[in-house]
């Protein structure tokens, strides 16, 4: 009795989870493995279209002979690079049609025209023509004839499915493609973006944790950048920072703080001298990082605020009795209480900023020294149309990501053990 109950429970569970599991596996897990496969292949964007044999049917009446009709098929191979093998052709005709001149490749039986065209090389084109005559002398309905579509079939190699593998993509990614620079840019972007958003998160959470008028409103406002669509925000920032008539540059010029406009998103380096030392700051990258901080600090804020509100008030009261200063309270009570949240936030944000694509893509498109790894996936795969290379870069990302996750779960596991 118990056994059958457990069995039905199991069955129910599988039925309930199956749709979700299947979908997630086919759309998320399968592509990750497909990536590995593609990354070892030489595939370009144009290769992934499956070549098709196509035929355009043109019906022409022959003057003076109403019982005869000429049908022209414009045949072609849709692919510019691949051949199609064993092309077969089929078309049906009304029951009173007799063929006049039969092509040797074809047969006409039971008002059905069948042809075997053999192999079509890439870019193949042919005008194939047949003439019919009705055997009962009736008139020909051209429209009806045109509405019957011929069927074509053929075999072709799918570049994606053959077993030619190459290491070329990985060689190119790791040795030719300024890989070190790419990696460094990505790490700058990720690290400073993460640290910045956490610092701003701490500041704002500390701020909203005080009592003041309009506090709930402030809390909503602080989340705006995170919930608004990235497309809208990125273009607004682009206009704001535009060197020619952007608001920021105009304001700075107006107050005579700068003399010439600064192209914050289009200039790779800017020279800054502090205390006689000349620095070269990566300007566009810094701006992009600022945008990232602006957009993602709300998340850190949300987490840290939740944690701050859970700190027992007694701790602060006890500190007040001991005569602790606000800074002492912050560094000795608040900060230790939120370190756990901060470290988890750091790991999560680090992983996510590492994979961030939209923000940089929309702001600079990866120009002026802001090319990160995810941007490179897009550029290789779609701008240069080298799908194999794009996949190889994706694989590099996945490998790095797995390394981060390994550390993350190790740290998380340690934390669980401690508690």
């Amino acid at each position, binding site marked *: 009795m118990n056994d059958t109950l457990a069995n039905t429970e199991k069955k*129910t*569970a599988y039925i309930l989870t199956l749709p979700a599991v299947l979908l997630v596996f086919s*759309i998320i897990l399968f592509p990750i493995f497909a990536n590995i496969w593609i990354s070892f292949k030489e595939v370009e964007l144009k290769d992934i279209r499956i070549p098709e044999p196509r035929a355009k049917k043109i019906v022409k009446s022959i003057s003076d002979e109403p019982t005869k009709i000429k049908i022209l098929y414009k045949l072609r191979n849709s692919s510019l690079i691949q051949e199609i093998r064993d092309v077969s052709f089929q078309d049906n005709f009304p029951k009173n049609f007799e063929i006049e001149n039969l092509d040797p490749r074809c047969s006409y039986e039971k008002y059905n025209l069948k042809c075997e065209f053999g192999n079509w090389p890439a870019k193949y084109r042919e005008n194939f023509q047949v003439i019919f005559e009705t055997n009962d002398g009736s008139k020909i309905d051209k429209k009806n004839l045109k509405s019957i579509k011929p069927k074509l079939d053929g075999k072709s190699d799918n570049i994606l499915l053959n077993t030619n593998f190459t290491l070329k993509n990985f060689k190119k990614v790791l040795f030719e493609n300024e890989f070190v620079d790419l990696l460094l840019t990505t790490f700058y972007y990720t690290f400073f973006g993460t640290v910045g958003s956490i610092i701003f998160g701490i500041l704002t959470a500390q701020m909203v944790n005080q009592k003041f008028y309009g506090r709930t409103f402030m809390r909503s406002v602080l989340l705006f950048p995170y919930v*608004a*669509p990235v497309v809208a925000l990125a273009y607004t920032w682009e206009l704001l920072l535009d060197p020619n*008539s952007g608001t920021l540059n105009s304001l700075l010029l107006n107050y005579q703080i700068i003399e010439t406009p600064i192209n914050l998103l289009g200039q790779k380096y800017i020279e800054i001298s502090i205390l006689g030392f000349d620095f070269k700051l990566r300007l566009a990258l810094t701006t992009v990082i600022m945008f990232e901080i602006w957009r993602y600090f709300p998340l850190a804020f949300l987490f840290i605020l939740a944690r701050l509100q859970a700190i027992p008030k007694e701790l602060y009261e006890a500190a007040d009795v001991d005569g602790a200063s606000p800074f002492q309270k912050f560094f000795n009570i608040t900060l230790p209480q939120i370190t756990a949240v901060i470290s988890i936030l750091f790991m999560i944000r680090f992983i996510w900023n590492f*994979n961030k694509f939209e923000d940089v893509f929309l702001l600079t498109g990866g120009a002026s020294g802001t090319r990160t790894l995810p941007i490179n*996936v897009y550029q290789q795969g779609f701008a240069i149309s080298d799908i194999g290379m794009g996949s190889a870069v994706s694989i590099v990302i996945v490998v790095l990501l797995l390394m981060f996750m390994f550390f993350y779960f190790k740290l998380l596991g340690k934390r669980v053990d401690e508690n």
Partner: protein
Amino acid sequence: MRTKNTILFSLISTFFLIFLISIWKILATLQGLSINSLNIEIIFIFGFLISLAHLLIGDRIKSIYKSIIFSSIFVFCDGYLIQKLPIWYNVGVFLILYFFTNKISKYTFIGLKEEHSTQIILFDFLTLFGILFFSFVILFPFYMMLITSFKTQIALLVNPLDFSINFGQDIKDLFKSYFVIFKSYKFGKYIVTSTIVSVGTVIITLLFAIPAAYAVARLNFFGKTFLSTSILIIYMFPAIVLVIPLYTIFSQLGLRNSIEGLLIVYTATTLPVAIYMLQGYFKSIPKELEEAAILDKLSWFGIITKIIIPLSIPAISSVALYVFMIAWNEFLFSLMFLDNPNSFTLSRAIQYLSGDAETPRQYLMAGSVVVTLPVLFIFVYFEKYLVSGLTAGSVKG
């Protein structure tokens, strides 16, 4: 000690005043006033003197009169002697000064003698500063987005600092950018597509996620722990590594440029977090209710629809709103999968607009307003639900 604290207090409060006045000046400049200098030095001297005078006078004068006197002197000097500016600007300055003098009125010489007084002052002013600073930094781009959408190309180029809107003009001229994007750029269609995709994603995700979450929360089966941990790990995989294989597969299946393709991908990417959020909530529902239902011979379908769903409306709303937001804001997949303008979503349409350098910026901003407003509206209206969704879904974003 007293002098040091006095000077520190005056400095801190003065910097706060400079910040307040500067923001006001920036906003005034953006209304078309020609203010060519922030006059930081003069405000610094005034602010310092006001803070000092405030301490020296103490409570010999009622603080209300004190505030009014200080504010009037400042307005007279700044707005009349140094630069002649319109009345509304000076009223603003007066209100700022009134607010400022009110804020400093609680500090006295006696208070300054107390332990940690400078730190307390610094903390107080930093909080005030933070509130204003973050409000400004966050709201300004939104403000700019909205204003730009109401301007004309020429006005924007002639004086990029003029944010004032002429409300006297015809409604048709005022909303011209909106009329244009709806008429010539088919934004009405994109709104419909975006809505269908987002709402569709929410419905399908819930249909798939509720049963799965129920199974994970309540039933015992082989592979359960594996499933619940792999859900989270899968969720951590970023869209950018899925893009190329999905692009190739969708190209070969003819799913590109179709709403179905987007629905499949969006559902798959939001399912893990939906299951994760829902199963946590389902676990908190008392088991006794279901046991009674089992005695009544309800099937699992009955249990889910008659007991679980009615009891978890808050969690389901959170998930629904969160998924809606993700689907509405999504950009990467819509960029990759859609290249036929007939099947664009709003985000993709705006990106397409910006690709043409000829597109006037007010159209771009009008489009941005159109795509932003629904999300912000939903967020403000359902904040409670969405915040819990954001927190749970925060591993991604």
